[in-house]
């Protein structure tokens, strides 16, 4: 009976090959498709039901109306909102209204979905990542100017707000620091993490949720991901 004996050099080559294949697989995975079942909290008082939502950088929605249709949001009741970080102005459109068709969704930017009871309690969001897309947080200005609604990649390596601070390069020391904000849709509470403070390390990011980034100086970054 013949037995196969691997020489030590051959073993090294095989292990190396396996490693390369595995890494190659991860690289493919970085562009793989995503499918996330995101719960939708129905509209309540104040910010209750403000579903700050991340969209994959590549997605099939295109416009607010495309999103409404594909997610099955209620026509003439559900709304989609975006924020222009440069002008500091909100834009809101209602599913089924002409404004919704006109509202183009910008890759990398998050949205706020509000929907009354009666619509789907969860939606399937699909898409893939664009690992070369660079985003810019403008310098914080008056009002909403400088607030970037950031679509957190679904395979982000960041776990907490502080991780984002570190990856993006938002200052964590000194008197002017970066701020990460999320909205707790069930409670309607804004939760804010200041880079370098305990509030940032204790602010856990939630898959499928966008966060708002605000920084004392303009900064561009390419999101880190697995």
């Amino acid at each position: 009976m013949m037995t196969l004996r691997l020489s030590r050099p051959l073993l090294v080559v095989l292990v190396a090959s396996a490693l390369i294949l595995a890494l190659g697989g991860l690289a493919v995975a970085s562009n793989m498709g995503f499918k996330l079942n995101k719960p939708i909290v129905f509209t309540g008082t104040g910010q209750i039901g403000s579903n700050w939502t991340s969209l994959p950088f590549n997605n099939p929605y295109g416009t607010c109306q495309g999103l409404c249709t594909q997610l099955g949001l209620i026509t003439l009741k559900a709304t989609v909102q975006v924020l222009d970080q440069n002008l500091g102005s909100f834009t809101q459109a209602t599913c089924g209204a002409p404004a919704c068709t006109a509202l183009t969704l910008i890759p990398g930017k998050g949205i706020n979905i509000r929907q009354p009871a009666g619509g789907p309690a969860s939606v399937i969001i699909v898409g893939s990542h664009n690992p070369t897309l660079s985003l810019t947080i403008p310098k914080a200005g008056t009002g909403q100017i400088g607030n970037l609604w950031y679509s957190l990649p679904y395979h982000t390596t960041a776990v907490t707000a502080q991780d984002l601070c570190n990856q993006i390069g938002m200052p964590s020391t000194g008197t002017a620091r970066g701020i990460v904000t999320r909205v707790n849709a069930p409670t309607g509470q804004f939760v804010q993490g200041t880079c370098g403070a305990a509030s940032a390390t204790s602010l856990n990011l939630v898959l499928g949720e966008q966060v708002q980034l605000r920084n004392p100086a303009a900064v561009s970054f390419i999101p880190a991901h697995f």
Partner: protein
Amino acid sequence: MLRSLSCLALIVLVASVCATPASAQCAGFSQVFGHQIGGTLVRCADNGQVSGFVFAIGATATINSSTVLAPPQTADFICEADGEPSQGFGTCVGGAGVRGDGIITIDGNWSNNGPLPTGPSGCPDSAQANGVGRNVMIIRDLAGGGAILSVGFDQTFSGFVAEFADRLETGTGNEIFTSCVSADGLSASSKTLMFDGVTKGGDTTNTTAAVQAHAMTPKIFSDCDPDSYGAGGDCITATGAPEPPHTFAPGPFYSKTGPCGTLLDLNRGTWAPYSVGTSLTFPSQSCLFVGNTLVVDGVESPAIAGALSIPGNLAPAARALDVRAKQAGGDVVVSWRTDSEIGLQGFTVQTKSGRQIGGMVAPKGIGGGGASYSVSLKRGDFKNEKSLYVVSATTDGQLKSDLASF
């Protein structure tokens, strides 16, 4: 201990430096007002920039279309045409059509300052709770038509939805878009004052006018009305109880002078108190505006809610412009246009010698706005004459056009 205090002080300092600064408008969240679900206002003279003013009951929040961005720019909260910039969405896309079609939309956001010299002042409902900061939306078109809407905060839309103040058609339940003019087309839908007459004098430099008018309780299109689209759904308090009814009464009179047929600043602070019958002098190329405020729940509104205009002796009036006459077979086709039809009763075509040809042509301008006309008359009725005037019959007398020949 000292170290803890130092850390706390640092955090407070950081927060004060980096946090979204408190500003005049709603901060940190969006609060829209206007048309959100495809509705419009109709029959509004909108061949230029329409005037609007929105304020909140029980709050100091106001926004004024004339100060949002200086004319002739149009980044205000009233859309006369799709594609123009707007204060809310950013671009008018809600079905406002084109200028001059009578269709406008309201598109604002109490949170948006944007690239504006003066955005909204105050936030109607910073708690985002029902029953707080009810919006009163005053629209006045370029011909004196207008509507007043009263809309409560809606949780789903995070704002004040104008469509909910629309009426529903009996039987079908279809939404009826609110109009700037009454069903007969002769006055504003929400009429705060009635014109009783004017005594005019003066010359080509200055005009004097003493206006007689009386106040009227206007029709308010409220989402609290049972026959409204909103049907009272947003007419509730924060606890869900019915919102206490609001009272709307006409307020005192004010006056101002300015260009005719253009954007009118409705901010009460830019008007002077007026006693009806008082003679005022103003430039003859301008208009005198007399309007009145609203008194809502006993408090006078910061805005003029309705106004009439008295043209000066040289001001644009309901005169037929660009009159053309052309013989076509056995007919003579006469065409003309108007910029304004305030006080117009109708047109007649007269020969140079003064003979009337055909009957009276009814005004078509929406709510007193301008319009275009074309009529065919029998060539034989002109006999041997080949020149004509279009004569406007107005409440102030007759205005002849320039002579046209065929």
